[in-house]
């Protein structure tokens, strides 16, 4: 009897400990969001969101940085999404286990571990200098794409693999080709998972500074970029600039910029979460 009370107590203690740790992990995230909100919200105004910076960035808005980040995200999506999904389809549906595919897989895993500044330097060498794209949205988008690809490929492959094998067998047995099976069944069922991976990958790209530092980011531009070969301002780089390069910078603007970036990224996150939970509710397997 005494033993069972002890056990009960131990269990309570254990659960309490685990719960505390779980709370501890979310505390910093919540704290960051609240802090940025509190500090940044006063800076948000129509002018801040739709105006150009002036007085050496110390006043005005951040429109070119917002638009620039939007362009870079779209540019990254254009290159990384088709390529990433195609690679995932190849790896999950067509590739058999050969030295070649093993090498590809290892490469993808290692690609994900490379520091982002290295991608930046690589982009500088390949896209900006060698391919002569210059410091441009194009070069920056391609650099971000290479960084994003491993995330998209591995999540998409995971999503494709989770579609039950029996669907493929049945579809083939009904006279479908492999590609028809992928297109009509496998991709359709894996789409929510793929989209989630795509959004998470793009979200990371949207928030990165280092890869665009040498490849596409501009300190200040008096107008919005007009072509993919123009350089652009971008939220994370702008934040870096106004936090470190501009003396006597009003702190409000820094936090306002951080808030806009945070909202941008968290919105993408929210979309991914909604897609995932909706798909889970509708799933027929």
């Amino acid at each position: 009897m005494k033993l069972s009370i002890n056990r009960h107590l131990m269990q309570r203690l254990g659960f309490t400990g685990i719960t505390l740790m779980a709370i501890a992990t979310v505390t910093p995230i919540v704290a960051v969001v609240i802090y940025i909100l509190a500090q940044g919200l006063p800076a948000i105004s129509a002018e801040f969101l739709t105006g150009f910076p002036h007085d050496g960035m110390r006043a005005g808005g951040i429109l070119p940085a917002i638009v620039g980040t939007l362009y870079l995200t779209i540019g990254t999506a254009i290159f990384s999404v088709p390529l990433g999904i195609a690679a995932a389809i190849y790896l999950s549906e067509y590739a058999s286990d050969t030295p070649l595919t093993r090498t590809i897989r290892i490469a993808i895993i290692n690609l994900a571990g490379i520091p982002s500044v290295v991608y930046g330097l690589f982009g500088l060498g390949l896209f900006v200098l060698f391919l002569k794209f210059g410091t441009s949205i194009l070069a920056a988008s391609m650099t971000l794409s290479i960084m994003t690809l491993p995330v998209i490929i591995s999540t998409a492959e995971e999503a494709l693999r989770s579609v039950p094998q029996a669907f493929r067998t049945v579809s083939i047995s009904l006279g479908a080709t492999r590609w028809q099976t992928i297109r009509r069944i496998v991709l359709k069922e894996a789409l929510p998972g793929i989209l989630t991976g795509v959004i998470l990958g793009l979200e990371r790209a949207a928030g990165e500074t280092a890869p665009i530092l040498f490849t596409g980011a501009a300190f200040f531009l008096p107008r919005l970029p007009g072509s993919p070969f123009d350089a652009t301002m971008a939220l994370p780089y702008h934040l870096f600039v106004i936090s470190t390069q501009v003396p006597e910078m009003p702190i409000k603007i820094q936090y306002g910029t951080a808030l806009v970036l945070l909202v941008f990224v968290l919105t993408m996150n929210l979309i991914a979460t909604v897609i995932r939970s909706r798909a889970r509710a509708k799933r027929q397997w």
Partner: protein
Amino acid sequence: MVDKIIIENLSLQYSDGVESLRNVSLNIPENAVTVLFGPAGGGKSTLLRCLNRLNDLTEVKASAGRIMIDGENVLDPKIDVIALRRKVGMVFARPVPLPMSIRENLTYGLELAGEKRRSKLDEAVERSLKLAAIWDEVKDRLHEPAIALSGGQQQRVCLARVLALQPEIILLDEPTSGLDPISTGKVEAALVELKKEFTIILVPHSVQQAGRTADYAAFFLQGELIEYNEGKALFTTPKEKRTEDYITGRFG
């Protein structure tokens, strides 16, 4: 009786080294239920999967022999496999409704075959659901997800899905293994009707089912065809000792 399928000296070895079929020769008559039975690992499913070339999806190391269907060797790499699979339909052990509505499950194969006319599709849906003895149960809910049906209903929808393609041969790989006795009875009753139109090859989930359904029966043991005869004869007076031992429950 006309032989629909002529299997000559068929051998097959999987890549993991397991020999699955050893020199099997067998003639399967038209418009009858031919039952392939025996203990697990005997090569029955492998044989079925050769008939519609579903083994193409598996790593096969070596195969030899011929399978003639209507005078054409279906193991020939040059044949039209898609056309073969439309002609030789298959029902699996576990019902696998595709993640779509009942109607879409039925029209899936036809649409891939290029049939777009709504009237033709509607006609095929009704005809095949009736043949599979499930029409009355699902006719008012054709647009509901097929997964919402009970296991027994799902399996009959899967049978109907095969019938919609108007195949000539139907392969059934333990189609009732997950079903209750009533659902099993319905599937077996459907087979009796179906054999008037189709050539049916059934891997039963028990010796009893083999006995109930077989017009012809083939006993497989470790990849070899031990005995093949008319069902009645094989189950009442087996010639081989091993067949007798198996059907009287002495092993397996």
